[in-house]
């Protein structure tokens, strides 16, 4: 599972860079300045794509990584999470308290 508390030693990173042809020494020097415990080992996990992020009655709505995880390299995860937030709140605001289920369904469809 992805985790901020799984760490890897800097020596492991340098072991990898030593296998890159032409990787410059100055970059290794930079890597060596990382403080102990400073390198997070973020495991990349696959999950099947999902189309549903709301509970059957629509009263529990997943947003952000709980709905759809992104690779850190995508540059999109935070933006998608914010879009989810804006979408569900807008749908709920338009639908009102009596239309929560429908508002959630529409949010889910749009996202």
């Amino acid at each position, binding site marked *: *599972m*992805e985790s*901020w508390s799984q760490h*890897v030693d800097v020596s492991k*990173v340098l072991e990898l860079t030593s*296998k*890159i*042809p*032409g*990787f*410059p020494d*100055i*970059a290794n*020097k*930079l890597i060596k*300045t*990382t*403080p102990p415990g*400073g*390198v*997070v*080992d*973020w*495991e*990349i*996990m*696959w*999950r*099947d794509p*999902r189309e*549903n*992020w*709301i*509970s*059957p*009655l629509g*009263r*529990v*709505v*997943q*947003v*952000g990584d*709980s709905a759809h*995880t992104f*690779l*850190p*390299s995508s*540059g*999109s*995860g*935070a*933006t998608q*999470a*914010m*879009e989810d937030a*804006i979408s*569900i709140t807008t749908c*709920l605001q338009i639908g009102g308290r009596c239309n*929560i289920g429908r508002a*959630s369904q529409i949010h889910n469809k749009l996202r």
Partner: protein
Amino acid sequence: MRCGNLGDFFSIGPNILRHFHNFWPDLAAECERINQDPWIAFYKITGERVSGPEPVSFGTINFALADGTEKTIPFQRHNRPKFVAALLAQARGAGVDITFGAQVVDYFENGERQEAGVLLEDGSRLKADVVIAADGVGTKSNKVVNGHNIRAYPSGFSIFRTAFPVGLAISDPDIRDRWPLLEGGKSYVEMWGGCV
């Protein structure tokens, strides 16, 4: 402020900032203030420069605010704790009550009672009309949303990530010389790419 300091950096797209400018101007202003706004340079994995440093141009949008003012918004690059602090300040400013240290272990909804809620670690329950599960990849909401946990498969890959105070790096004069700030104290990002 008890947000913690994990999580280095991420990008926020201009469409989000446009929404902030139109509906949450204080938050928009704070995002502009804390935005790292680095220039960008591309390098080969061998350290050979390909382009830049130059301003980030992709994704920039131009739009008109509600009062007609023209605004140009680039991609923003944010330090996670600072961005979270900005959101927290805005939420509090809007009168939202925030409680920390209340671990959610389960979610539920009830049609008859027209409510949903969360079960906390201490056994207590919080109820509401709607519950938003924003608890990330390890969310406890999959049982109520999908009826079962979502299986994750190891890909065999990892991303190694780090963020630490710059003083540690530039204590080495070679590093300080290789990566000076740009004119005016501007920071920039080097994207190194290549296949191994």
